[in-house]
């Protein structure tokens, strides 16, 4: 039985003359946490968009739990947090979660209990009744994490989750990710925060100009990079790949 939560097979995506992703092959095993790294414009966001079915690849296949992510029902098993979304300013976080819960087809009771749990987990209980327009950037990020986790997804896809989080919030978030991993959830996140990525991930994939130039476990770093992820990252980008 295929243990992969997602599989990206020789996928390319072009926008006119520009090839954002070129021949990418990547997969994520169940229960794994993978960091998705790369410079700006490397193709990370395009890859994530193909993964959640927002756009179709020009060539190759993308499979989410063995199915095409464009099928809406398969997305019931994923949670996605975009980079810096400005959620509906006229709602408070409870209403936001109630809305997303409804969109996920959850009933009111489940939404309520899940909301209480998540607000506690992301530290927004005290601000629950305030409209989102009064939230800081970090608080909006936490609301975004909460909505991504609302339907208890098997796969969590996060785009720059650490943006705007203060040190305390980062620690809380790290603990949250660890708990999710212990529950057997798979997590795939893109980030520029190499330190956080190194602490959380089982493996990293590094993109450069639409190609995945490195994909390997983090615990191999001592051999590959001779040290830490930052050194590996710079090495990989300069050399264009690792043997």
């Amino acid at each position, binding site marked *: 039985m295929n243990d992969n939560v997602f599989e990206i097979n020789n996928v390319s995506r072009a926008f006119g003359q520009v090839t954002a992703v070129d021949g990418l092959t990547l997969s994520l095993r169940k229960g794994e946490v993978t960091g998705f790294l790369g410079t700006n414009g490397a193709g990370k966001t395009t890859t994530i968009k193909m993964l959640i079915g927002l756009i179709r690849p020009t060539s190759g296949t993308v499979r989410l739990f063995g199915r095409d992510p464009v099928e809406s029902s398969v997305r019931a098993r994923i949670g996605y947090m975009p980079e810096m979304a400005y959620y509906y300013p006229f709602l408070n976080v409870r209403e936001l979660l109630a809305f997303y819960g409804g969109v*996920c087809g*959850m009933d009111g009771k489940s939404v309520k209990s899940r909301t209480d749990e998540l607000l506690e987990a992301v530290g927004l209980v005290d601000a629950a009744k305030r409209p989102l327009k009064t939230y800081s950037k970090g608080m909006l990020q936490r609301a975004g994490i909460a909505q991504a986790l609302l339907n208890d997804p098997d796969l969590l896809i996060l785009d720059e989750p650490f943006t705007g989080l203060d040190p305390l919030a980062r620690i809380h978030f790290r603990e949250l990710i660890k708990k999710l991993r212990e529950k057997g959830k798979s997590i795939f996140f893109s980030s520029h925060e190499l330190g956080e990525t190194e602490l959380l991930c089982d493996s990293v994939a590094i993109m450069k100009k639409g190609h995945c130039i490195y994909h390997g476990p983090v615990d191999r770093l001592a051999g590959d990079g001779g040290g830490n992820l930052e050194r590996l990252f710079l090495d990989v980008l300069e050399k264009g790949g690792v043997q």
Partner: protein
Amino acid sequence: MNGRIRRIGALVKLSLLELWRRNDMFALLVLALVLLVPLSMARPFGATGATRYFDEAALLLVWGYSLFISLGVGGRLFTSEFANRTVYPLLAKPVSRGELLLGKYLGAVAAAWSALAFFYALWAVSSALRGGECLSVCFFQAFVLHALFAALAVAAALCGSFLFTPSASTTLLAILFPAMFFFGRRLPEYAENVSGALRWLVDAFYWVAPHVEFFDMRQRLVHGWGGVEPGVFLAVVGYGVAYSAVLLLFTGILFNRKRL
């Protein structure tokens, strides 16, 4: 099926909350009071008892408001989602683009209708207080047709938001709708006074443009003409539903092809 209804219901509720929390409604209500209260107290030549002018003014104001609300709500539906990047977490949920479009549209229509019901209720109460008859067949027909107008305006604004920038779309529709409202039925007269390509253009416009004047039953309400024949009523309802459906279909195609 339950899941689909829940998904669409959640989207509808979002639009309703947005309209009633944006303070637009309250601003419009205050403006209405500022305009209509002095008007209701007017004593032309010191005489009292005239009411039709007030009904006409009030209903014209309601039409203006409903256009403003419909174009505003419809135009903002996806524009704000794209601008605030909330379309991404939405589409990452188990909801198809078609459901999202339908749910957002129905939400906007529900929002526009709630505002319309509010203003019509106010007008009915005001008419009743002045001794007029309000809850008649004509009133019901007028409300239903006006509601269809709002649905069509929302569909047009939604479609326009995918074709043009928000301000361009709103401006175009804010010109087109009143122009058709007041002059649409006179287009054949204008066509007769021009020739050549211009005549062809006017004729084509006459056939294709949304004839929003069909939904206008103000004169019937103000002057007590009574309701329209059932066949005519159904014809106008059919026109409104069909036109809105075509606009929605076209919007669906645009949405599916939109690069996200």
